[in-house]
């Protein structure tokens, strides 16, 4: 059900998501944009990206 | 005068053997296939046979086998003279009772010597 390569990819994806969701990366996005901070917008975009990657990873037929 | 039977289906080879044997002082009779060879031997028994293997109809091996099976020709000197040069065929011929197995093309002198030696041996 979980070929080794897919497990490896998933672990890397989790690490990537954890990095995207935490400081210091989020500090980069914490900048005002016409009064309000970009932070929330950044989080939503990063979140959607991670979900998209996970869907792509988990819905493909495992080739191995 | 010793009588030699030449059995071969190649006319030119028969021609050369006939000449060689006559020159060596033997009487020569010929046959072009196994069937006629056996008839010839029954009609006028030769003192020696030069026998080819690839013959139309009965093969030379069969002729040899039949001759050795008959008491009259059990000790008849027979030289296999053939273009089949493989070791297995040579062994087969000797096992079936041939006195010698000579591969074509042959040395005329060696053949004549061999025929003479065998005839002397059987006469002794």
């Amino acid at each position, binding site marked *: 059900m979980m070929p080794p390569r897919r*497990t490896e990819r998933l672990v890397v994806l989790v690490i990537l998501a954890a990095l995207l969701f*935490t400081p*210091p990366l989020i*500090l980069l996005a914490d900048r005002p944009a*016409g009064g309000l901070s970009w932070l929330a917008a950044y989080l939503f975009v990063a979140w959607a990206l991670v979900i998209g990657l996970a869907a792509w990873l*988990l819905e493909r037929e495992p080739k191995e | 005068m010793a009588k030699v039977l030449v059995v071969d289906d190649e006319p030119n080879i028969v021609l050369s053997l006939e000449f060689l044997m006559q020159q060596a002082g033997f009487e020569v009779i010929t046959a072009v296939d196994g069937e006629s060879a056996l008839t010839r031997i029954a009609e006028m028994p030769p003192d020696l046979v030069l026998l080819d293997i690839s013959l139309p109809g009965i093969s030379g091996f069969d002729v040899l086998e039949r001759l050795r099976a008959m008491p009259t020709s059990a000790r008849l000197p027979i030289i296999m003279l053939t273009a089949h040069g493989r070791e297995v065929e040579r062994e087969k011929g000797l096992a079936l009772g041939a006195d010698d197995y000579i591969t074509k093309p042959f040395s005329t002198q060696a053949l004549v010597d061999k025929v003479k030696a065998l005839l002397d041996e059987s006469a002794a």
Partner: protein
Amino acid sequence: MDRELSVIVAAFGYLALLFVIAAWADRRARQGRSVIASPFVYTLSIAVYCTAWTFYGSVGRAADAGPSFLLIYLGPTLAMLCGPLIIRKMVRTARAQRITSIADFISARYGKSSRLGALVALVALIGITPYIALQLKAITLSHAVLMHYSPVPTGVTSAASFLNDKSFWVALVLAVFIMLFGTRHLDASERHEGMVAAIAVESLVKLVAFLVVGLFTVFMLFDGPADLFARAAAQPQLQHALSLSAVPGGALGWIGTLLLAFLAFLTLPRQFQVLVVENVDERHLLRASWLFPLYLLIINLMVIPIALAGLLLSGTGSDPDSFVLTLPLSAGQEGLSLFVFIGGLSAATGMVIVETIALSTMVSNQLVMPLLLRATPLSRGLRGDLSGWLLGIRRVAIALILLLGYLYHALIGDAYSLVTIGLVSFAAVSQFAPALLLGLYWRGACGLGAGLGMLAGIAVWGYTLLLPGFAQSGWLPMSFVEQGLYHLAWLRPYALFGLDGLDIYSHSLLWSLMANIGVLVGVSLFTRQSRLEQTQAALFTGALTEGIDTAPLWQGQTTRGALRDLLKRYLGGTATSRVLAEANATDRNTSMEACVASADGENAAAMDASASPQLIARAEQALAGALGSASARVLINSVVRGEALDREAVLRILDSTSQTLEYNRRLEQKSRELARIGEELRGANERLRELDRLKDEFVAMVSHELRTPLTSIRAFAEILRDSQDMPDDKRAQFLEVVVLESQRLSRLIEEILDLARLESGRLTLHPKRLDLVDLTRQSLAAVQHPIEERGVHLEAIIDLDEAQVIGDPDRLEQVIINLIDNAAKFAADQAPRVLVRLERHRGHIRLSVEDNGPGIAIEERERVFEKFHQLAQQSPASGHTRGRPRGSGLGLPISRGIVSQLGGRLWVEDAETLDGASLIMELPDAPREMQAS
């Protein structure tokens, strides 16, 4: 009051609908047509994570603390992404061991320890009660807002006076509802299909309600998102609303809250219930791993717009937790407000239903049943069917849990906002994480360490979060919070050991997890595990190893009758017969007769028969599914004599499985591959040997054919050399023979080369358009003289003016000559005749060469095309009369090769006109269009 009535009708109608859905799903499950066996339903049931706290509280937190509300959902996103790794392991173990709750799971992992199970159940009860209180508060609060909203913002204090009465009734109604809902079955089992279906529907309702109110806010109250954000940006007091500076604890607090949400998602009893216990198919996890984060993303999209809109429109006086309701109310949207209320109700009830069922299972299985079983005289005294008792205990537990929740809410609930209560609960259940996660991956983690660690962690949690909460509610002096216990500054609950600058949750989580993990690891390193604990630890950590739970674990002895009686007492009659029938179906040692008898319970002899290890294991599993693993173990021990488990064997299996199984699997694969390769090699070898044999044969034939002319040449050459006195005519004859035989030799070599080229495909033809009539005449002219010299009568019938074909003229001529030559050889001895005929036949040009010989027998007709095949020539008794040249036996194979390369055919038939054989060559007509050119 009309409004009051419509709200009550809507709320009860909604609950009734849920009940109908649950009943329908339960019926479908009994018919074997489960409605929840889908990754989508699984995902929606996981969304029970989003409670009233999400529905109302997210907006509140966004208004107070900026984007930090998202952490509560980013944490679970991370946890869910790990789902195929971590949660799958829990699911597989829980299925194999029939786990009923997280308390059961932890207890089973640490040697089916009933003390540890009880501790987990107690902690969960303490930690979750505020959370349930929060839902009650949300329902009553939202109801109050809906009933008593006035356009002039006066705050919710006016509504607060109504709360106490209302929330008690809400709790009561929910209690009855959950009893009907979760304990409908007479045989208590760990699965609740109906509940899962209802929860999935609730998740849809709350999602749609929240999105609708969000869209309403953005597009009806404002002119789209651009307008909303522009107006918010213009407000100076909102400048930092969305930045990290609004987050309590800053960057460290951010990480702390993320970790808190991550751990709580895995350890909340209701999440464990839907994620692990209610999972129908392990494969659903794969899709849910990204689908559930997507659900979270969608439900959070509208939080910030609503929060900003609320802050812009409502002023400072109103409670941000109610923005979701007050925004549509302020716009006079009664219907929309009612829908939002139902959405909030679904979020709250969903949580309360699952949480209460999970908690009541823990209370009955981990707290009450072990006590009942320990009091031996009492349990002996309980005669008859105990399964009814079990359900009774659960129902009482449900009522008590909701009562506790109500009391918490009524007494101290108001001190905290929605989010605060939720986070306090999160911090409490996070104390399960070390025991749970370390237990899954570290075999050495022991039960004593897990228990003490959890106690330490929960003590720190109580000191740093719970007691300060009491202080803020006025139960304890505030000086406790501000100056620390006994006025010791390093004991200040919000800055333990002087650690300052974190938000209170991260602060509490940090210290409690440190204490928890430290004690767990420290104690485990210095404690010997019991043998049962070793077995269970190995089973849990090796859960993903294939073929691990197959060994029969029981070595003791008991009778089938004793087991049946035991099951009957705790599970009831129907469930017992089902378990026994299932076990019999898989137990091959049991005869058909005993099988039927034991299911009926009639045959006394069968009941006296000893039970197989498989049956005992199955019985323990069934009991564990209803009572929890610790109690099931106690009960089975009470009827089984002798050694319960062959633990050494199990441990041996487990220790070696991971390596050995993998090794064996690879070996098997390798040997299968080798066998296959060997087979292929054998085949290839066979073919090679056959080819080799054919090659030997060919070489022998070639040498034989070459030797024949060479023999004549050498013999005559030696004769001519040795005989000086030879007549001239003799000499001339012999020389002529040498010449002829030399020619024959060269021809033969040429043919052998042709054949070799044909067979290897290197024979290059030069095809061009030609007239076969001309070519045939040309060939006839070439052979006419030599053939007739041999006494053969050669005639030709050519009916065509022209016959255009594509071919190589030289090669075709070679073929035609070869055919005529062949026919001449086989013609009759007396008056030999050969007839060549050229005609058109069905779009082909056909050349046939007949002779008047004996013909060729049907079985010989294909063999004449074999290499060196020479037909036995009819032997003239007189020897070689006609001086017929012998063929090499290669002419026909070569001819056939050439003709088929030109797209034609060559074969043998009976002659049409003459009596003998007929060799027929057919070539296709040349295409018309080419003819024109």
